[in-house]
């Protein structure tokens, strides 16, 4: 049965090819998440410390805020992990199996990916008025909206400085694009798509900008820094893009099944804040009464609960997970042209591992 087409023509082709036959790498032994993490453990271990050093300021309040998310490894550090693994994989490929060591510039991209992500979370929490993040009180709840936003700006300034210090103008362009995508993605979320047919495309485009772009461009940046061929750079980019989309789709599905303690942030948050994500959009096909609720952003009394009920009754969650799987498969497929290495295998397994998470 033909599944919901992936929104990008190129990946649609990849999806069909890989979804209907056994994955070519499935013969190779799978790597667990902890094993994958182990491959870049040394670099990851120093990550938060290095970020704190970059953010060094003599102003106590700003220091406290800046360090809030970088004091321990409470976050998943997914983006740096991805970036470091990709660095090794492209280095191995570019050197034709000579070495895979991560260069200082590539390490900097990993730092930047985490810093940029965190700064955007701080701003997002102000926009959403969220009280919790990663199981703790948010910056805006503790220090107020104004200081939260300004601290986020400080982090972005530091980010840009670190990026520029690499000295590669093309890489700067690549990562600057992420900043634009993050905010236009957020703006897309503010608006709504009137036509049901275009709603899903709008949702996927927004999801790319908000989640996919950072991963895609971080991967692209480290590939560029390895002096890779344009094809390799594109492969790295596509990997990041597919993983980002898969990751967000799982996140959107979890929002309907997880609970606050488990997730570390409020559950059913999307519907309560008026957002129609993949599970709802899929459910709407079977239950058209969701259409009106989507249009008014679940603002009427009882809308959130009814939407939740209908989504859980429908196959919306299952189809969301299925789409996530297709993107994970496409992600792994993107790396097919890279020289075989344990890091390449790790990236391919990581795409699958992300589907299994529960937070």
């Amino acid at each position, binding site marked *: 049965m033909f599944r919901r087409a992936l929104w990008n023509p190129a990946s649609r082709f990849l999806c069909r090819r890989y979804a209907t036959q056994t994955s070519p790498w499935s013969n190779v032994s799978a790597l667990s998440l902890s094993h994958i993490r182990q491959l870049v453990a040394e670099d990851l271990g120093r990550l938060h410390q290095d970020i704190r050093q970059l953010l060094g*300021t003599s*102003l106590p*309040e*700003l220091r406290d805020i800046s360090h809030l998310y970088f004091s321990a490894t409470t976050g998943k550090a997914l983006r740096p992990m991805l970036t470091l693994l990709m660095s090794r994989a492209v280095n191995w490929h570019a050197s034709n199996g000579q070495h895979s060591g991560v260069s200082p510039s590539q390490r900097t991209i990993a730092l930047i990916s985490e810093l940029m992500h965190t700064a955007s979370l701080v*701003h997002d929490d*102000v*926009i959403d*008025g969220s009280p919790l993040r990663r199981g703790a009180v948010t910056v805006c709840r503790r220090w*107020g*909206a*104004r*200081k939260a*936003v*300004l*601290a986020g*700006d*400080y982090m*972005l*300034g*530091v*980010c*840009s*400085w670190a*990026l*520029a*210090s*690499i*000295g*590669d*103008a093309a890489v*700067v*362009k690549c990562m*600057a*694009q992420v*900043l*634009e995508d*993050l*905010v*236009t993605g*957020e*703006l897309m979320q*503010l*608006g709504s798509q009137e036509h049901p047919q275009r709603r899903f495309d709008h949702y996927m485009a927004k999801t790319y900008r908000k989640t996919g772009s950072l991963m895609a461009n971080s991967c692209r940046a480290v590939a560029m820094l390895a002096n890779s061929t344009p094809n390799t750079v594109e492969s790295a980019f596509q990997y990041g893009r597919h993983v980002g989309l898969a990751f967000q789709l799982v996140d959107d599905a979890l929002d309907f099944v997880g609970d606050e303690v488990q997730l570390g942030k409020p559950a059913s948050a999307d519907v309560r804040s008026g957002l129609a994500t993949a599970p709802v959009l899929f459910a709407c096909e079977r239950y058209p009464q969701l259409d009106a609720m989507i249009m008014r952003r679940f603002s009427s009394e009882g809308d959130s609960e009814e939407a939740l009920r209908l989504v859980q009754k429908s196959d919306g969650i299952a189809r969301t997970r299925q789409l996530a799987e297709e993107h994970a498969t496409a992600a792994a497929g993107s790396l097919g042209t890279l020289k075989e290495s344990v890091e390449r295998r790790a990236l391919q397994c990581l795409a699958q591992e992300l589907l299994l998470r529960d937070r």
Partner: protein
Amino acid sequence: MLSVLKRLSYPPLLVGGARCFSRDLKQSMLDAEKVVGYSTSIFSLRYLLSDEVANIALHLKKLVGTRHPLLIRARKMLTEGSPSGSLGDNWQLRGLLILLVSKAASTKAILGTQRSLAEVTELIHFASLVHQDIVDLENADEALSSGNKLSVLTGDYLLAKASVGLANLGNTKVVQLMSKAIQHIAEAQFSQRELAILDSNWYNRSFHEMGSLISNSLSSAICLGNHDAKYEAAVFEFGRHVAFAYSIMMSLATSHDGVDVEKLHEACRQHVGQAKDAIGIFPPSDAKDALHHIVDSFVKQSSISALTASLPRDS
């Protein structure tokens, strides 16, 4: 969006006596614009009029009647061409200084990258004002909360555009300099609020809040023009003193209570002198003269304010 904003009906805002600025200051700005070939605002609200951010206009409508700072800021931009709105019609100091310095440093025309830098600098300035306008809310005030959200997004959008603009200049040193300025502007908001003017802490905060963006953008302009490093250092110094002089002038214009106006006026004069000394190494030109006229008008303005302060209140 324009129609939305034009429908706003707020009384004209008076910032102390700032409405009555000297003819000299306005004239020097207008003359300067002729030198660099610009008669319109370096940065306009066109960024906010794009399709992508059409949503902002819709949501801004809901703010009408709430007096959220974002609304007031946008109105100032629209009616006065400047986010601060207090110093005259249609000019933006930072961008203008960049264009003048670019012209003063070279016999050739101002580069496209330098003009782009001027726009980026005004973008950063406006974005920082928008973010500083965010109000801390004790209670869950729906309208102001909404205003805050828009402020975050608007500021972020402008900063993102600035970042892309900087990246497109193709010069990583410039990106470094301007990133430092962005850091400094944000940092300044975390320093102590009540500072005695001309105190060393006041100078420190003043540099972070205003001087850094001016100094770093002027240095960046020189860098883009591939000029001698000594010009970079010179304009950096110029920028620092211009910012101090300007801040003192504004301080004199807005409040006189418990302030030694003579001392401030003298300090303003000294910084203007140091600013002119800093660009002494530039060859004579219309652009250099324009820069002199602008900073001289700061001194003139501060002497007018000092004089006004000495008059009895009811005159």
